C-alpha cells in the first residue's frame, strides 16, 4: 500500500518531448488506469514510475520518498509486461520465485511462498513447465504470480491483456480486479482499450500527446468529458461532433440550418462563441422525416450488433452514428429525422477544445468498485 505522487514530470529524448509536465496523485490502494492512444506517453510514464526510464524533470515519489534516483529494485514496485517477459529457460516455479531467490530468501520459505502464489493465480499444476509449454493466459498468470510474490507496494501493468484473445481478456480483466481486491496494493494499469479502462478503474486518467486530458472516475469521464479529445476517445461508437456557433441570445446552435436547443444558461454566457457540439450515439434519436425539431438525414449504412444496431446517417456530408434498439428498420438511402436532446449536448470551445461548462474542481469521492465478477 503506497501513495504515488507525480509532480510536473517531463520526459524528453533529445529535443523531442514525450511528456509535458504531468501532475498526478494516486491514493493508497487505488486502481488507477491510464488510458490513451498509442504514443501518448502513458507507457513512458509507467516505466518512469517503475524506474526503467530516467525522469528528465520533475519528481515521482512513492510513499513519500522521492524515487527519481532509486534503482527499480529499491522502489517496491512490481510490473507485468505486455509480452509477459518470462524467463524462457526457467520453469514456472523458478520464474515466480526469481525475485525471492535474488533477495536470498531461504529455499524452504521460497518454496512455500511459490506454492501459495501459484495457488492464488491458479498454476499449481504447472510449476514444472517451461513458459514455451504454456498458453497465453497461463503465461499471463505466471507474470502476475511473479509480480505478486514480492508483496509489492505498487503494481504496474503495461498493457498486460493486449496479447490475449477477446474472451480471455474479459476473464483476465475480472481476475485482475479480484486480485486487486484481495491484495489492495496501489495499482497502475496502462491500456489503450477503453472497455478495460472503464471496467477496471477506480480512477481513470486520459492522456493525449504527453498531456493529462482528464482525471476522474470512469462515469465522470464518460458523462462530462473535459475536452473534445476525451469525448472522442471514450465511447463506442465515438461521440458525434458538429461545428457551429452559439446563436446570439444563446438559445441554440445550428445544424444544417435547424436550431438545436442548448442549455440556456450556458448558452447565454457563451453567446456568439465558435463551438464544437458533441452528442453520444446512444443519446441521438431517429424519427420519421419531417418530425418537428428533427434534422433531415439520409441513412448511410446500418451495423447490426445483435443486442442493438448502429445506424450511421449523413447530414449534409457529416456522418452521425446513432445507436439504439429501434424496432423500425432503416433502409440504406432512406430519409429520416435526427433529434438531438439538449440535455445530452456537450459543448466544447473550438479554439481550446475545452468543455464550456467545465466545473472548476470535480470531486473524486465515488470510490466505486462496480466491476461485475
Amino acid at each position, binding site marked *: 500500500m503506497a501513495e504515488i505522487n507525480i509532480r510536473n514530470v517531463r520526459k524528453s529524448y533529445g529535443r523531442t518531448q514525450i511528456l509535458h509536465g504531468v501532475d498526478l496523485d494516486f491514493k493508497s490502494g487505488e486502481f488507477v488506469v491510464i488510458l490513451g492512444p498509442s504514443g501518448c506517453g502513458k507507457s513512458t510514464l509507467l516505466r518512469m514510475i517503475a*524506474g*526503467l526510464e530516467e525522469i528528465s524533470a520533475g519528481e515521482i515519489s512513492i510513499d513519500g520518498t522521492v524515487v527519481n534516483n532509486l534503482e*527499480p*529494485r529499491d522502489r517496491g514496485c512490481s510490473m507485468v509486461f505486455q509480452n509477459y517477459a518470462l524467463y524462457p529457460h526457467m520453469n514456472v516455479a523458478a520464474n515466480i520465485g526469481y525475485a525471492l531467490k535474488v533477495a536470498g530468501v531461504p529455499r524452504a520459505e521460497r518454496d512455500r511462498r511459490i506454492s501459495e502464489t501459484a495457488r492464488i493465480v491458479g498454476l499449481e499444476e504447472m510449476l514444472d513447465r517451461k513458459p514455451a509449454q504454456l498458453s497465453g493466459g497461463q503465461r499471463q498468470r505466471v507474470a502476475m504470480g511473479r509480480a505478486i510474490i514480492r508483496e509489492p507496494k505498487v503494481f504496474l501493468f503495461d498493457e498486460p491483456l493486449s496479447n490475449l484473445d477477446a474472451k480471455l481478456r474479459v476473464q483476465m480483466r475480472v481476475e485482475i480486479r479480484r486480485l486487486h481486491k484481495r491484495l489492495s496494493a496501489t495499482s497502475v494499469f496502462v491500456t489503450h482499450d477503453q472497455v478495460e479502462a472503464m471496467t477496471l478503474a477506480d480512477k481513470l486518467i486520459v492522456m493525449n500527446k504527453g498531456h493529462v486530458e482528464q482525471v476522474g472516475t470512469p462515469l465522470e469521464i464518460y458523462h462530462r468529458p473535459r475536452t473534445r479529445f476525451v469525448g472522442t476517445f471514450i465511447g463506442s461508437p465515438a461521440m458525434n461532433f458538429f461545428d457551429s456557433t452559439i446563436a446570439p441570445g444563446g438559445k441554440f446552435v445550428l445544424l444544417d440550418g435547424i436550431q438545436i436547443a442548448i442549455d440556456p444558461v450556458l448558452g447565454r454566457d457563451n453567446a456568439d462563441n465558435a463551438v464544437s457540439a458533441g452528442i453520444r450515439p446512444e443519446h441521438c434519436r431517429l424519427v420519421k422525416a419531417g418530425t418537428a425539431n428533427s434534422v433531415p438525414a439520409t441513412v448511410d449504412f446500418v451495423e447490426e450488433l445483435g443486442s442493438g444496431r448502429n445506424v450511421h446517417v449523413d447530414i449534409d456530408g457529416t456522418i452521425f452514428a446513432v445507436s439504439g434498439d429501434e424496432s423500425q428498420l432503416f433502409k440504406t438511402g432512406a430519409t429520416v429525422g435526427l433529434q438531438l436532446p439538449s440535455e445530452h449536448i456537450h459543448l466544447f470551445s473550438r479554439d481550446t477544445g475545452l468543455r464550456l461548462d467545465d466545473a472548476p474542481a470535480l470531486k473524486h469521492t465515488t470510490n466505486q468498485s462496480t466491476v461485475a465478477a
Partner: protein
Amino acid sequence: MNKRAVFKSWWLPILFALPQLLLIFFFFYWPATSVLTWAFSLEPAFGGAGDRLFVGWDNFRDVFADREYWQSVALSLVFAFTATALSMFIAFVLAICVDRQLKGSGIFRFFYIWPYAIAAPAVGLAFRFIFAPESGLIAIVNTWSPDLWNPAKFGSHAMILVIICFAWKWIGYNFIFMTAGLQSIPRSLIEASSMDGSGPVRRAIDLQIPLLAPTLFFLLVLNLTESFVGPDTYGIVDLTTEGGPNGATNVMVYRIVSEAFQGLNYSGAASQSLILIGLIMVFTFIQFRFVERRVHYK
C-alpha cells in the same frame, strides 16, 4: 515448382564443377593422402619417391616415445584452454558493457571488432615490440626489478605472451557473436529481472549466460579448435617466440610445421598431424556429447 536443371550431356556439369573439384583435389585430397602415406612410411633422407619404405606404426611409436612431444601436447592444452577462457571471458564482459548501452558504447563496439581484422602474424609482430623486455611499453616493469618480465628468458612469460596475443585477436571475433546474441535477448527480460531485484552481475549469470548458451558453445568449439590447430596460433608463435625459449611455447601446430619444413622430417610431422586431427575430433566429440546437452536451445 521443380527448379532442378537437367543436363543432357555428362561432361557439361563436370566442366562447371571442375574449378571447385580441382581446388579440393589439390588443396585437400592430395595433401591429405600425402600425409597418410608419409605417416606410415619412412621418408628417404634425401627425398625421392621411389624407395619409400612402409614402416606401419613405427612413426607413431617414435612420436609417442619422445618426451618433448608430450611436453608439446601439454603446452598446447595449456595454451588452448587458457587462451580460450581469457578471450571468451573478456569478450563477454565487453559485450555486456556494450549491451548496457553505457556512454560511448557505439564507438567501443566499433573498435572492439577491429583486432579480428588484423592478421595473426601482424598481431604477433606488434606484440613482440610492445612486450619486448628491453625496450617495449612493458619494459618499465624491469626497472622496478630486473627480469620481472622477460619472455626471451622465462618459458612461463613466453607462454603468457602468446596467450595474450591470441586472446587479443580473438576477443574481437567473440565480441561480435556475443553482442549479436545479447541483442537478441528481449529487452523486457532484462527489465523484468531488474524489477525482480537483480543487478548487472546477477543478471549476467542468471539470464544472459543461459540465454546466450548456444552462442557461447559455438564460440567455445571454435576458439578451442582454432587455438589448438589454427593458423593464428602458428603465426603468433612464429613471430613472437619461435617456440622458445627452450621449447616453452613449442605448441603442437608449431612443432609440426617446424619439424616438417625445418627438420625435413615429413614422416614424423605427418604422424603428428594425424594425432592432432584425432585429438581435435575427440575434443569436439566430447564438447558436443557432454557440453551441448547442458545448453538450452529455445
